[in-house]
């Protein structure tokens, strides 16, 4: 037995600074050896120097064993006329990659900040209507996250409170589908916050975070409301609401269009009639805006509109 075969710590080869990019093509797996934490930057165009990405400009069948891909295999998989360099580029662009630890950490950090920025822009202190700083939101979310593991155990304690909360934050419509969603919401367990991930978009995570913050209230928060201008032909206002086409027959449609519209509006700033038009400016919970829009479209056939005056009303210094 040759001595080189003896596995000793000194003659082991460990690939400590290698990140592989693999591509399956033609039932074969091809690999290239890259430096860690560089491939994503290259793909995003932040890194332009190929020498900073590739360890060796060569295609392997197995990098750790040092098996270089034979020309025949490459030809077979990629077709003729493909140069080795082009294959390397192809794999680099399209292959599946190992995300380096630093890359992941940085991306996570970025998403975290983005989520915070979005949340901070849309939540206000309910009494003063002032926004919180990202730092405060971050701390509040951290608190939620650390409670997250025990949320199930302690859930019983403030169950009642949370139900009340979600009832407040949910729409206060007396009938129809909204009522059902409300019931669903109450039945659902409290939304929990487990920190950001890189797999979901920042916006949807921000919505999750907001929901969690509002239901747990580590600091007093509420969503900043939208200011809308709702206009409607006066003739339409007195009409009774047509029952929704869906299967919620158990909640009979009552009230006029006007009542229904006003039920969406949390607080009315002005409301007046000018000529043929009824106009109302008021604050609406952002979650209700879509519902309101759908209702207006469905009921009034374009004779009523909702116009956004301000997406998030917060206290202004002057």
């Amino acid at each position, binding site marked *: 037995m040759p001595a080189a075969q003896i596995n000793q710590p000194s003659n082991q080869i460990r690939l*400590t*600074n290698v990140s592989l990019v693999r591509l399956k093509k033609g039932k074969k797996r091809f690999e290239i050896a890259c*430096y*860690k*934490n*560089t491939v*994503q*930057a290259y793909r995003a165009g*932040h*890194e332009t120097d190929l020498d*900073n*990405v590739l360890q060796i400009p060569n295609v392997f069948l197995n990098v750790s064993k040092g098996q270089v891909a034979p020309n025949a295999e490459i030809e077979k998989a990629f077709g003729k006329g493909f140069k080795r360099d082009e294959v390397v580029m192809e794999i680099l662009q399209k292959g599946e990659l190992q995300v*380096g*630890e*630093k890359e992941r950490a*940085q991306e996570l*950090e*970025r*998403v*975290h*900040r*983005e*989520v*915070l*920025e979005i949340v*901070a822009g849309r939540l206000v202190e309910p009494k003063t209507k*002032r*926004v*919180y*700083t990202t*730092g*405060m939101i971050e*701390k*509040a979310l951290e*608190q939620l996250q650390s409670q997250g593991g025990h949320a199930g155990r302690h859930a019983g304690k403030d169950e009642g409170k949370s139900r009340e909360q979600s009832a407040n934050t949910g729409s206060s419509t007396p009938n129809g589908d909204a009522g059902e969603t409300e019931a669903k919401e109450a039945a659902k367990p409290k939304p929990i916050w487990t920190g950001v991930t890189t797999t979901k978009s*920042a916006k949807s995570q921000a919505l999750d975070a907001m929901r969690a913050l509002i239901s747990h209230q*580590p*600091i007093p928060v509420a969503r900043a409301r939208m200011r809308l201008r709702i*206009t409607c032909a006066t003739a339409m206002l007195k009409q009774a609401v047509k029952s929704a086409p869906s299967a919620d027959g158990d909640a009979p449609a009552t009230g006029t269009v006007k009542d229904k519209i006003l039920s969406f509006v949390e607080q009315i700033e*002005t409301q*007046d*009639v*000018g*000529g043929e*038009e009824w*106009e109302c400016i008021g604050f609406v919970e952002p979650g209700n805006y*879509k519902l309101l*829009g*759908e209702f207006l*479209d469905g009921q009034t056939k*374009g004779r009523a*509109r909702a*116009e*956004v005056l*301000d*997406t998030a009303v*917060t206290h*202004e*210094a*002057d």
Partner: protein
Amino acid sequence: MPVVPPEKLVQLQQQGQNVRNICILAHVDHGKTSLTDALIATNGIISPKLAGKIRYLDSRPDEQLRGITMESSAISLFFSLLRRESPTAEPQSKEYLINLIDSPGHIDFSSEVSTASRLCDGAVVLVDAVEGVCSQTVTVLRHTYVEKLKPLLVINKMDRLITELKLSPSEAYTHLSKLLEQVNAVMGSFALGERMEDDLRWRERIDEKLQSKGAEAGSNASSDRKGSIASHENGVLTDDTPAQYEEKEDEDIYFEPERNNVIFSSAIDGWAFTPGQFAGIYAKKLGMKREVLEKFLWGDFYLDPKTKRVLSSKHLRGRHLKPTFVQLVLENVWAVYEATTGGSNGKGDPTMLEKITKSLNISIPPYVLRSRDPKALLSAVFAAWLPLSTALLVSVVEHLPSPHTAQASRMPALLKESPGHEHIDARVREAMIASNAAKEAPVVAYVSKMVSIPESELPANKRRGGALTAEEARELGRKKRAEIARAQASASTNGDAGMESVTDALSTTAISDEQDVPIREFPEDPSDPEHLIGFARLFSGTLSVGQEIYVLPPKFSPAQEHPHPPPRKVTITALYLLMGRSLESLTSVPAGNIVGIAGLEGAILKSGTLCSQVQGAPNLSSTTAISTNAPIVRVALEPTNPGDLDKMVRGLRLLEQADPAVVYEQLESGEHVILTAGELHLERCLKDLRERFARCDIQAGEAIVPYRESIVSAEEMREPRDPALGRGIAEISMVGGGLKVKLRVLPLPAKVTEYLVKYQGCVKRVWAERMAKERERRDKSGQLNASSESNGNTADDDAEVSTHGDDDEAGTNSDRDVKHAADDSIEGGQTMSVDDFKNGLLEAFEEEKADKALWKGFVSKITAFGPRQVGPNLLIDKTEDRVCDSFFHNQSNDATTSTSPLHPLLSKLTHAFQLFTSSGPLCAEPTQGIAVLLESITTDQAILCSHSAGAQTGEILRSTRTALKSAFLDWSPRILLAMYACEIQASAEVLGRVYSVITRRRGRIISESLLEPSPNFTILALLPVAESFGFADEIRKRSAGAASPQLVFAGFEALEEDPFWVPRTEEELEDFGSLGDKENVARRYVDSVRERKGLVVQGKRVVGDAEKQSTLKR
């Protein structure tokens, strides 16, 4: 020795002539608190042995820890003086009450000094004998000069000359006289400044007279006779205005040892003397009159040893004699040091000591003689020979004025400076000048600051009576020992024949009863609420508990008939005698005293005036009268536990009240920002917040810096994205081709942007008015008479404008100070009428010469401002048929436009414009100075109707914003930095260092001017807010405290660099290489903001050089 009950102090308060209100001022570490200790020791509050070491008035733990004073604190001391009217007369005992205020010396707490000095009548200014005049020494001297306090100079730390510098007596004398010259030079410069002003005023008066006379004469007489008229004129002039400028007497402001207003001392070794004291000693020995000797003891005078006559330097005739001061005074002091701590081994010289004690006729207790510590011996000798308290207190009593005399001289000038002084009631004025303590006299008091005291420390809550606790017993024991020591000391003093006239003055203790001693064994109750007590000086009348009194805020002026808000009336709930750490309840206080007032909580924010009447009341706390430096160190605070926010906010409000130099702001971004005077001050505030006011953990961090984004048309821009359309133009097709919009983004001319920023208030008001009007119009249900209403409105506006006309004029003057411009931008335009605003905007557009045709008629086509409907960006309707409402043309027939099918689409476009301007493409900061032109809009109703409105909204908003973004980036983008206008006063020596600090922080010098007549320069500079963290600290450090900056926000300024610039042309590539060697500063700012907000940072690599990653561990 008799124990003096607090009643004694109270009784003394009634005798205005025997009260002295003094403050102790000096540069940091020149020994203020140690000196105060020595004085407190005379009243038996602390042991004389510990005096100078325990720093009794530094009651805060952090003050003790750091060894510096942070808060001024007051103590009332009792002092009795035996005085002989004539040498043969029986000595008479006179008792004095001395209200002493110890002030901090560190520059961060200079506001405490200014408030303390207003409360007092006299000041004791300390100067370190070695360090001499320092930066804060000048400041405090200026304070005394401006506040017209009578100063007393103490040259402290004399021991350092002996033990540290090892100077011989004659060297020390030269050193001291130089030091004295320095101090007098500082005083002289103040006097000179005032003299020059006076001179100027006098000249102006003469000129005025001449001119008016000349004009009169010119109309009567022909021009060739002017010469004779002028000469005649001079004759006339002398009648009313003195032709010669009258030199004011400035003798009394200087410090001269022969006038006994200079004291030489060593607080640590417990001794002090005035030359007069020595004159008294030597008067007998030399057979001279004391008064004569006093004159010749300091200065170029020599004592002829044979004839025992004093010679001046002229008569010296080559003989080597020492000056009298050296020979008679310093050498003796030196000898004591030599005998006790000197010698070969530092153990002193016993034989010499014996000689000295014998000649001085003092006896040293044998246990001290045997002690191994030479210091103990030293202080024992000095305590018997030249006790510090005697010299100081005698001088204070003799040279500093009582409230009566001080107010008589100070008040007229002080009142003259206060706002609306001509409206002050004559009765009040007289009472204040006379310090009238009569019950019926009007009460006037000035509250300099609010002191926060935990409830358990109030006398009402202290344990009384009952058995002595162990703590109290120990306390009592300590006092007794102190008394014994003092008794011995005074006994030996009295026996001394050589100096009886001086040391006749002997202090007696004023040990108040046990209530006086704070009982500290109470565990710190966590719910112990803080009480705010006003630190006040009563100027006239008598204040008693239960009295109702008006509180005048700092902005009050007696000139106003009905001040708004009306002064509040409060009831005084308690009065306290301030005794350093403890308080003593009082029932009433007469004029001329310093007192703590409870019951002002909530009525006074920081400082204020109390008066028994509102009409004709003086305002002593107006901001103009008191010079406090505006706080400049700015940090954002956040509770560590987010649930503690309420607590923190409450704590911040309390802190703002309790500390005159703190400003608390809540920003639009939700940040809680405090401004403090310096880093040290900030630390103290945080500690206070954590432990007393908020009682929760608080973190401090950098405040978020705002930026703005804009575009310019620059030389080196790359090709427009779509050459067919032109630069900044974007065509978008939305809703499946149902809506086609052509937009154009343009940079606004600089003048227009400036105008819009300045008069943002006007846009805001117009917007608010428009909303209100629309509402109103609807109330009238369409039956409106548009023209009449608009006329009425403009009339209203005109009225407003006429009252504030000068404001507007000033605002348009572009040559104004940057600082003022910033102020204007906040308030400017609030009072402007719509028409004025429009005209101004038109003018601003007119001034742009380059593209006159392009900008023509823009003003009437403005559809909206943005962001938030009021910002400095414009949405302009350039379509053929003017589909949008004009912003200014608000009477437009809403009925027709709002029902048009375009209207909902347009409102969506406008909304997209608002969104875009509120977060720009560079780093999501608001934009400034861009115009979005709506060039054309075409719709296809069929396609539009087939799409649901909800989906449409989203798509229109999204694609419009993307289009605007790409059009924006077609130009050369710029990032605008928030700037501070920075005003720095610095002496010529440190000018270079100040400049280097400003340049390193990317600041720009605007102007530099000599501040006549002082040798200081005033530098105006612009400094980016982003670079201002730690600026104040750095500039103070680099200039050794000789430069003090003031920062005021001054708006935004563009950084003339494209954040996306990379070398492109061949020349540039040659110069900078393909990567761009020099750092792009604009890019750095943009990237830091993007990183903070979690936006993708272009070109950011995770690792710099991949090969260089460590291969060993992960």
